């Protein structure tokens, strides 16, 4: 393209009715893309939390069944709003951990509750002392 053609094309473009359309379109669509990205990260965080509570419930159940004190610093590895339920029945210890995961750090009313359960048999000596 010669210099004069290029200038003419540029001039025509400056009169075009869709000038700046791409920028406006980008500005409209960008929030949707950001939202999709944020949802993706949130889903990823759900899996990480699920793995954490599974591991924690297993550790607590094992500690109790072996007569050891359940790890005191588990709270530092678990997310906020977690709830631990420990039940001992018929030589079995049941540990259930529930976590409420909310959207946008509790700014939105929706969320999801994750739970993990681990059941372990009490060791013989601990079973007799528990009963």
């Amino acid at each position, binding site marked *: 393209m010669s210099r004069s053609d290029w200038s003419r094309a540029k001039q*025509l*473009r400056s009169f*075009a*009715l*869709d000038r700046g*359309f*791409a920028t406006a*379109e*980008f500005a409209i*669509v*960008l929030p*949707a*893309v950001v939202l*999709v*990205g944020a*949802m*993706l990260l949130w*889903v*990823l965080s*759900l*899996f990480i939390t*699920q*793995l954490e509570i*599974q*591991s924690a*419930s*297993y550790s607590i*159940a*094992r500690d109790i*069944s*072996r007569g050891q004190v359940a790890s005191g610093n588990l709270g530092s590895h678990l997310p906020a709003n977690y709830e631990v339920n420990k039940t001992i029945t018929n030589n*079995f210890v049941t540990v259930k951990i529930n976590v409420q995961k909310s959207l946008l750090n509790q700014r939105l009313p929706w969320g999801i509750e994750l739970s*993990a*359960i*681990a*059941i*372990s*048999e*009490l*060791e*013989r*000596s601990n079973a007799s002392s528990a009963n």
Partner: protein
Amino acid sequence: MRVQRISPTKFDDDKGSISLLMLTTILVAVMFTSALLYLGAAICLQSRLANSADLVALGAASEFLADQPNPCQAAKTVASQNQVELVYCYEQNLSVSVEVGISTTNFFKSLGVATFTAQAKAGL
């Protein structure tokens, strides 16, 4: 002959190009998320199985302290309590090896993975 006037920007405008690009991006992200969901589910399931296998092996090993030990029966009980299936149990020299499994959903079956399994060993 009728001559139709065509605007210079009729064919070379970029209206809708960003929308198309973003739509493609979102579609790719949704497909990626679906794959991520299945992968995450598989990892969580495998982690739960590994933890359950440990608890089953420990429960079975503690049976050796009983007067008439039956570790594999204890392993079966703990496995059913943890909602997993005891696939294999072998006791030898005051130690017990177990393998637990769980049936997968149709998606994983279509990939050729019918069961997730995990092994553990414990003893006195």
